[in-house]
């Protein structure tokens, strides 16, 4: 009886959420009409809709997906996927999974490429997609994105971890937020195995830095506890940087520098820095930020 009540409550909750989400989407735009029925998916059913990349959305703790398809005679359909990610940081995170250097001024971050526009706002991530791109489709996709963005009332905050990334030389259009090691490897291949003990309970941010001809990266990870952070650093040193010994800045085979540190439940690793001095400066800056200096 209790189980039945809980299931009913969940269905009622999801129904309420999806009803609110429906209000964000128009029924018609530039002659493209929405199909009679929207489709709604949750974490159990997402694979019925997305063959493959569903795991990306699950890794960002997604809750509900509303799909509305628009059709117009003689034109390629336009599909809107509206994801309720449950939190602004995960909406931002899933947006950063695929975006490249670009900003369109839609929502709180947006990206367009050949018939595909994505943006995030509040706890929502939106993908608008057409298999083919024409001028008319592109125009309609942009208009649709503006409408949806304006209909979503809330704004969200960026993940707090981003504040710890030093600003100098940071490519602000290439910051990634994620939880697990698959995402880390997707953006910066570190190791096949999960040597940093990343998982759904960890939060990580990866920033890209440009120094003349070098791309360098700073990874900051927040663990649930100081002990978990310590274990992660231990594992990293054992499996990736065994020669470090007592050193916190190490030059590796590509002649670049890696440095690392831990403060409370956070760890930070600097990859591919072109000079030792630079790595030291950035390391100090992160430590000061984390200590609140």
């Amino acid at each position, binding site marked *: 009886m209790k189980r039945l009540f809980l299931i009913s409550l969940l269905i009622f909750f999801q129904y309420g959420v999806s009803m609110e989400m429906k209000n964000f989407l128009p029924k018609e735009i530039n002659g493209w009409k929405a199909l009679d029925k929207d489709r709604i998916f949750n974490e159990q059913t997402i*694979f019925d*809709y*997305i*063959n*493959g*990349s569903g*795991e*990306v*959305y699950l890794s960002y703790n997604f809750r509900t997906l509303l799909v509305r398809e628009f059709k117009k005679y003689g034109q390629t359909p336009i*599909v809107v*996927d509206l994801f309720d990610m449950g939190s602004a940081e995960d909406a931002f995170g899933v947006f950063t999974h*695929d975006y490249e250097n670009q900003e369109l001024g839609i929502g709180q971050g947006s990206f367009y*490429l*050949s*018939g*595909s526009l*994505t943006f995030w706002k509040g706890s929502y991530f939106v*993908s608008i*997609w057409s*298999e*083919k*791109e024409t001028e008319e489709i592109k125009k309609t996709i942009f208009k649709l994105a503006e409408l949806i963005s304006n209909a979503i009332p809330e704004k969200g905050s960026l993940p707090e971890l981003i504040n710890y990334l030093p600003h100098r030389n940071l490519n602000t259009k290439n910051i990634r937020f994620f939880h697990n090691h*698959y995402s880390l*490897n*997707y953006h910066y*291949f*570190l*190791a*096949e*195995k999960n*040597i940093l003990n990343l998982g759904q309970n960890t939060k990580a941010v990866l920033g890209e830095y440009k120094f003349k001809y070098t*791309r360098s990266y700073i990874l900051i990870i927040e663990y649930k506890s100081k002990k978990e952070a310590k274990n992660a650093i231990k594992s990293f040193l054992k*499996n*990736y940087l065994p020669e470090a010994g007592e050193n916190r800045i190490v030059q*590796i*085979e*590509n002649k670049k520098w890696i440095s690392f540190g831990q403060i409370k439940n956070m760890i930070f690793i600097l990859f591919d820095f072109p000079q030792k001095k630079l790595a030291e400066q950035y390391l100090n800056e992160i430590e000061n930020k984390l200590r609140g200096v």
Partner: protein
Amino acid sequence: MNEKSIKGITRRDFLRGTAYAALFSALGLLGKDDLIAEKKTKVVLVRDPKAVDWKNRVNYEVILEMLDQAVMALTGEKKPFLAWRKIVKPEDIVGIKSNVWGPLPTPHEVENAIKKRLLDVGVKEKNIKIRDRGVWRDSFFRKANAYINVRPLRTHHWSGIGGCIKNYIPFVPMPWEYHGDSCASLASIWKLPHVKGKTRLNILLALTPLFHGIGPHHFNPAYVWPYRGIFVGKDPVALDALGVHLLQEKRKQYFGRYRAFATPVKHVYLADKKFHLGTSDLKKINLIKIGWKEGILI
């Protein structure tokens, strides 16, 4: 257990160059014994600039000729009829395992070209069927004694790439059971009684491959390029290994740096090392290149 099996391949292995040979599969763990030359698997890559036009329209006549050239090179025959006759016999019942994925399906021109050659060598029309989804319960495919496996090459979110091995997932009723651990056990499908030993030819289409996928639908025309090539061979693992290699090279060219696939292409390596379906080691593949060389990348 050695150290490598604890941490797997790391970025530093690539930097040292020790993992470069394995880069093509993002996971290949070559041992010293792998470096010893063995009998090589033959794969043919045929390319023609007229195979696909600037609107990505496929030219049936050119495809037919490319397939003939590939099958002749593969079998060592000088005439298409004799070459195809080495692949199928008139009495065969042939299932053409195609691929219908919306944005990048097996083109009908390719399906029709294969069918034409099957008819030419004497296979009866009623003994030829083209299908993708639902083949596991299709009585025709169950009774078929020969399969021709044909699909486009693309990146895939669950398995790293979609190639010849992955194309057989509709031969099982519950494909999701094979999605775990980067689709590690896909090759086991090839050992099922209704599949094992039936595949006569694998055709991996690199006409307009997808080298990177983004968004929920994992497709964007910006990441498709007109390579205008077709890989043909008997070893599905060798074809997929070459497919991975090609996509990696394209990604390096496009992004200006090594960029890992969304998912490690574990299933290709395991198809070799665990399931012994074929070879994933590029050093053991004899790649015969025919035709257009511009932008060949591999």
